[in-house]
C-alpha cells in the first residue's frame, strides 16, 4: 500500500463544504457495489475477468475492502454504457468483452495449457503482455485484433473504473469532490487544509497529522 499520503481518506470530507448532496449520492452508490455481483458475465467469464483485474491493477493484499473492479466492469457491461465511439476493428462493447475474455482464456491454454485464472501471476502477466503486443497464438484473435482489444477496451474499462473509486484517489492524493468549496492555494507546494498532505522524507508524521484533519 502506498504511503505517500499516509492516513488520507477523501471520504472524511463527505460532510464538509467540498461535497454536495448529488455527489454524496453518486459516491454512495459506487461504494455500495457488491464485489461478488456479476449480472452480465457468466461465472466462467467472471473468473477470468477477476484474474485480469488483479494483474492490471494489483491491489495490496492487506486492503480490507479492495476496489470491486471486476464488479464495476460487469456493471458497465450490464448497463451497456458506451463511450461515444467504437474502433471499427472492434465489435460493440458487450461482444468485445465476451470474445476478448474467451480469447484470453484460449491464449492461456495455447501458451501454458492452463486456464488463465489458474496461472501464477507472472505467467498471467506474460499472457497479458503478449496480447498487448499482439504477439498471440490463439485462433480466437483472428477476428479480434489483440492489441486494439487490449488497449482500447480492456485497459480502458478496467483502469477507468479503478480511478473512479475514492480508494484510488487516496492513493494518488487527489482532492476528490470539490463543490461548492473549491480551492484557494494554487501555487507550487501549497495545499489547502482540506487537501492530501504528502509524506516527504522526514515529514511522515506531520503528513499523517495533517491528513487526519482534512475532514
Amino acid at each position, binding site marked *: 500500500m502506498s504511503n505517500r499520503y499516509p492516513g488520507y481518506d477523501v471520504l472524511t470530507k463527505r460532510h464538509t463544504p467540498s461535497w454536495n448532496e448529488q455527489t454524496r449520492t453518486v459516491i454512495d452508490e459506487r461504494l455500495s457495489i457488491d464485489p461478488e455481483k456479476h449480472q452480465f458475465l457468466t461465472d466462467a467469464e467472471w473468473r477470468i475477468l477477476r484474474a485480469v483485474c488483479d494483474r492490471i491493477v494489483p491491489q495490496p493484499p492487506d486492503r480490507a475492502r479492495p476496489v470491486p473492479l471486476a464488479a464495476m466492469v460487469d456493471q458497465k457491461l450490464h448497463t451497456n454504457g458506451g*463511450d461515444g465511439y467504437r474502433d471499427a476493428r472492434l465489435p460493440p462493447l458487450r461482444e468485445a468483452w465476451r470474445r476478448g475474455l474467451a480469447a484470453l482464456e484460449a491464449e492461456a491454454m495455447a501458451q501454458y495449457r492452463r486456464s488463465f485464472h489458474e496461472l501464477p501471476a507472472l505467467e498471467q502477466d506474460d499472457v497479458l503482455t503478449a496480447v498487448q503486443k499482439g504477439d498471440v497464438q490463439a485462433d480466437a484473435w483472428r477476428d479480434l485484433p489483440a492489441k486494439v482489444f487490449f488497449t482500447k477496451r480492456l485497459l480502458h474499462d478496467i483502469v477507468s473504473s479503478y480511478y473512479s473509486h475514492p480508494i484510488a484517489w487516496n492513493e494518488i492524493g487527489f482532492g476528490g469532490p470539490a463543490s461548492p468549496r473549491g480551492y484557494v492555494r494554487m501555487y507550487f507546494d501549497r495545499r489547502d487544509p482540506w487537501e492530501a498532505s504528502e509524506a516527504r522524507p522526514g515529514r511522515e508524521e506531520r503528513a499523517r497529522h495533517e491528513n487526519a484533519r482534512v475532514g
Partner: protein
Amino acid sequence: MRMPVSVEPIEQPRAINGGAPDVFHRGGVVPMRQYSDDEVVDFAIVGTGAGGGTLACKLSEYGFSVVALDAGPYWRPLEDFASDENHQAKLYWTDERIVDGDNPLQLGSNNSGKSVGGSTVHFAMVSLRFRPEWFKARSKLGYGADWPLDWQEMWGYYGEVEQTLKISGPVNYPWGPHRPRYPYRAHELNAAGLVLAQGAEALGIQWTETPLATVSAPRGHSPPCVYRGMCVIGCSTNAKQSVLITWLPRALAAGAEIRDLAMVGRIDHDREGRVTGVHYYREGRWRFQRARNVVVAGYSIETPRLLLNSATSRYPDGLANSSGLVGKNLTVQANQAVWGIMEQEIRSYKGPPSLAITEHWNYTDEGKDFFGGYAYMSQGPLPMHWAGVQSSKRGLWGQRLLDEMERYNHQVGLKIVGECLPQERNRVTLADERDQYGLPVPRVTFSFCDNDKRLIRHALDFMGRALEAAGATEIWDETDDTAHLHGTARMGDDPKTSVVNADCRSWDIPNLWVCDGSVFPTVGGVNPSLTIQAIACRTADRIKALAARGEL
C-alpha cells in the same frame, strides 16, 4: 435542507407545460413560450450549442419565432452536477459511433456533448480569436481554403461574444491586431500555468493568461470561479459561461421555445425542393415540427449525418449536397502533449485546466516546416482521464501504472491545439448499423496527413524543450490525441466547392442553413467555440437584413 428531488432530466423532458428549467436555481422554472407542431415557425434550429443556442437567442431577440430542438437533457447545474468524472459522462454524446482511418478519433468526452447548451456545458472555456490571416489561409498563407468572411467584420462579432460571456483575460493580449481589454480580469495562475510561463520565458517567447469563459468576479446569478478544477465535467458553481446559462436564458426571455430530449432524425422538403420542417423523436414518438426555415447546428458529425439521412429521390445524395462535400473535410485539431515530473507539488487538478497559453507558433511563420500553427496550454487532467493517458496511450498497467499514478500531484504537461489541414478523405458517412432511434449510425474516418505530422513533431520538440527549461524531468510525448471537430459542411463563395455561403445558408436550398463548427473551411490553432458563436451572431444579423429586404 434537502431539496425536493426533481424529475430525472435524462428520462423526461423538463421544458414542457409553458416552462423551462431556471438554470440558476434548484428546482426553478422560467416561463417559456410554446408552439404546436402544426404552427409554421420562422426557424426550427437543430442543436442548442455554440452555434444553435447563440443563433436561437439572437433570432428570437430579432422577433423571429424560434423552436430549438436538442437531443440532450436540460440541466440545472446546481442540482444536477456531481463532482465526479464517471457520473458526469452523462453530459457526453455516448450514442454509438464507429471510428476508423489511420488515426481513429476519440469522441464522446473529448469533443461531443449531448446536453441543452451542447459541448459548451463541458468545454474547457478557452475563448480565442482567430489569427486574421486564417480567414484567407489560401491566398495569404498558401494552404487550405479561404473563408468568405472578412476578419475585421469578425473582430466586431468576437467583441460581442466576449462581452456576452464576460471573458476573463489579460489586459493586453500579446498577439495579433489590437483587441479591447477583456471584460473581466484574468484568473490567477496555478502552478501548472506558472510552469508554462517559466518555460516560455526561458525560450524567449511570449505567454499570457488564457482568456476563459468562466467569471473571475460575480456576474448576474453567476458567482466567481472557485477553482474547483472540474470544468470539463460540468461546472456545478455556475461560474462557467456556457451557452446553457448565457444565450439560452436570453432566448427564452425573448420568446424562443427550447425542446429538450428531442432527437431530430430527418428534414422534409416540398415539391419545390424547399424544406418544410423536421421529424423529431420526443416522449416516445416521432413528431413533425413545421418551419419556414431549418437551421442544422448539430456539430460536425450530427450535422452531416442529418443532411445525409434526409436524402430523397430529388436529393439522392442528401440535402445541400450538390457539391458532394457534405460530410467531407472533417477536420480536427492536433492535441498532442508533453508530460514530465516536477520536484515541487503541482496539484494541477486545482483551477481551470488551461490557465496559461502561448500562441507564439500561431503568429510566427519563420522556423516551420509545415503549414498552419498551434497554441499550447497548461494542463490539469482529472484522475480517470490521467489514468487513461498512462494506460491506453502510454501502455502502462500493473505496478508500473500504480507507481506512475502515485506521482499525479507532481506531473505537469503542455498540450497543443494544433491546426490540421482539411482533407476530403476525412469524412462522416452513414454506417449500416442503427441506433436506438432507428437511425443509421455515423462512421467517422480520420487520418493525419504529412503536414499534420510535421506540425505535431515541431510542437512536441518545442514543448519538450520548454518543459525541460522549466525544470521538469522524465519528459515523454503523448502522441495520439485530437480535439474539436470542424468541416463537413464548409462555407465558401463557390457552390461547387462549398456547402453554405458566408451567411451559413445552403447553396442548394435557400431555406436550409447550417450554423456550427461544420462550416469552418480551415481550423487555425485555437479552440473553436468563440468563432462558432461569432459566426452565429453574424448569421443572425444577416438573416435580419435579408428578411428586411424580403430575401429570406
